[in-house]
């Protein structure tokens, strides 16, 4: 695979971000300096479950390059921002979610693998959703 990945060391791992001890702002991918106050940020493992903040469907094949068309051809895919409890909304491809089932606020599991972060339906209901 070409290029260094932003946070992933292997398949299906949690996302590694950073957090500013001063102002509490978390970031993804990890950055050495806080994007808000400029102070030093420390590495942090981000939660693996969040909620869908917004989404859309990529219905046409992006231009290649930079897009790498899958071996079995382009298929429309969902993409969205998943909000994690650390206060980070992470851009991710949504696997196994159909457009008609996508709902803002739905719980999703988020993992880092080869490539960009990937999200899929949460295996367990989000406790916040149950009590909320």
């Amino acid at each position, binding site marked *: 695979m*070409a*290029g*260094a*990945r*932003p946070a992933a060391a292997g398949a299906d791992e949690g996302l590694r*971000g950073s957090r500013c001890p001063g102002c509490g*702002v978390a*970031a*993804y*991918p990890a950055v050495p300096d806080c*994007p*808000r106050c400029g102070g030093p940020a420390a590495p942090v493992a981000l939660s693996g479950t969040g909620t869908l*903040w*917004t*989404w*859309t*469907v*990529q*219905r*046409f*094949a*992006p*231009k290649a*390059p*930079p*897009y*790498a068309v899958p071996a079995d051809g382009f298929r429309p*895919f969902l*993409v*969205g*921002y998943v*909000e994690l409890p650390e*206060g*980070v*909304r*992470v*851009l991710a*491809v949504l696997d196994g979610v159909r*457009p008609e089932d996508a709902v*803002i606020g739905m719980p999703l599991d988020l993992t880092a693998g*080869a*490539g*960009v972060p990937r999200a899929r339906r949460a295996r367990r209901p989000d406790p916040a959703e149950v009590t909320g």
Partner: protein
Amino acid sequence: MNATDVVVCGAGITPFGRSEASGRQLAVRAVRAALADAGITWSRVEAAFGGSEAAGNADTLVAELGLTGLPFVNVRNGCATGGSALVCAVEAIRSGAAEVVVAVGFDRHPRGAFDPLPAAWGLDEAYGTDGLMVTTQFFAMKIQRYMHDHGITARTLALVAQKAYANGARNPNAWRREPLGADEILASGMVSDPLTRYMFCSPGQGAVALVLCSREAARRTAGVPVVLRAAVARTRRFGSFEVFSPWAPAGTPTSVSRDTARAAFEEAGLGPGDIDVCQLQDTESGAEVMHMAECGFCADGEQERLIASGRTAIDGTLPVNTDGGCIANGEPIGASGLRQVHEIVQQLRGRGGDRQVPGRPRAGFTHVYGAPGVSACTVLTR
């Protein structure tokens, strides 16, 4: 208020859309049209600023325009290219470095969505190979959330595009000149939910040039002057939600457009309520809806009622994108910002032709937005 007023004395534009002409050829035509409008020759121009995203360096235009030795600075600032060129021109005039300045923006893009490379935007290669370097995704996701939060419907998105095509039909330089109805727009095929094909602008081609002068120098031109009260360009701040963001902080997002518009109104000493006609970045229908609020023209959610009641039409109380905007003119990145200014200049001069805003508008506003969170705004008065 500023000590030195900057005056637009000449404005030139080419037809937008597709032709065989190169971007540079279009730029030369636009500059010559602006000079003719001002009634001056190229030799009177003391400095120039301009650029394109994908059609070459503006300073090479001296080969066709004349080798007068003037300073000509290339500007390459994405969608804010035209706006940034204007800011440079204004500063040159206010500083006393030059009295007659040209700003030019032009472009020519291949068909289809833009195909930016991740490295040029400071992003990991994976965002390109996995298909996330697509600007349409961002605009779709931003309006998707906005509709959820503020009760905007898909029909309102269609009405924005319907207005764009109706205004484009009245603009001889527009690319899309066929009126389209809201139902047809809604049924044109989903591109990136909730946005359909006819809600989007297309990358295209075109060029625009302006002749800017000090008040003193303006007296020696033949153009009908319009005062450029403010020209501001900005980048994003923390907390905003912008194109090509691998992540964004939680909370209610702000935007670079909000900051830029506020700064432009402050510089002009005017407010949104003073504006009679405005041009807002409409990369797609949702962008126009959101930019109405971000630029201060309404509260979040009010667009649903304002647009349905025709308030943003040419004969409404706040006409938006009277020339058809990006949706009807296409998006040649380097040219769009100055196209907006050109349109306001024509409206304030009363030369809007079939699309003239009634009631002799006195003040206009322009706004562009683009990746990775840049914006440029102007305020003009007659």
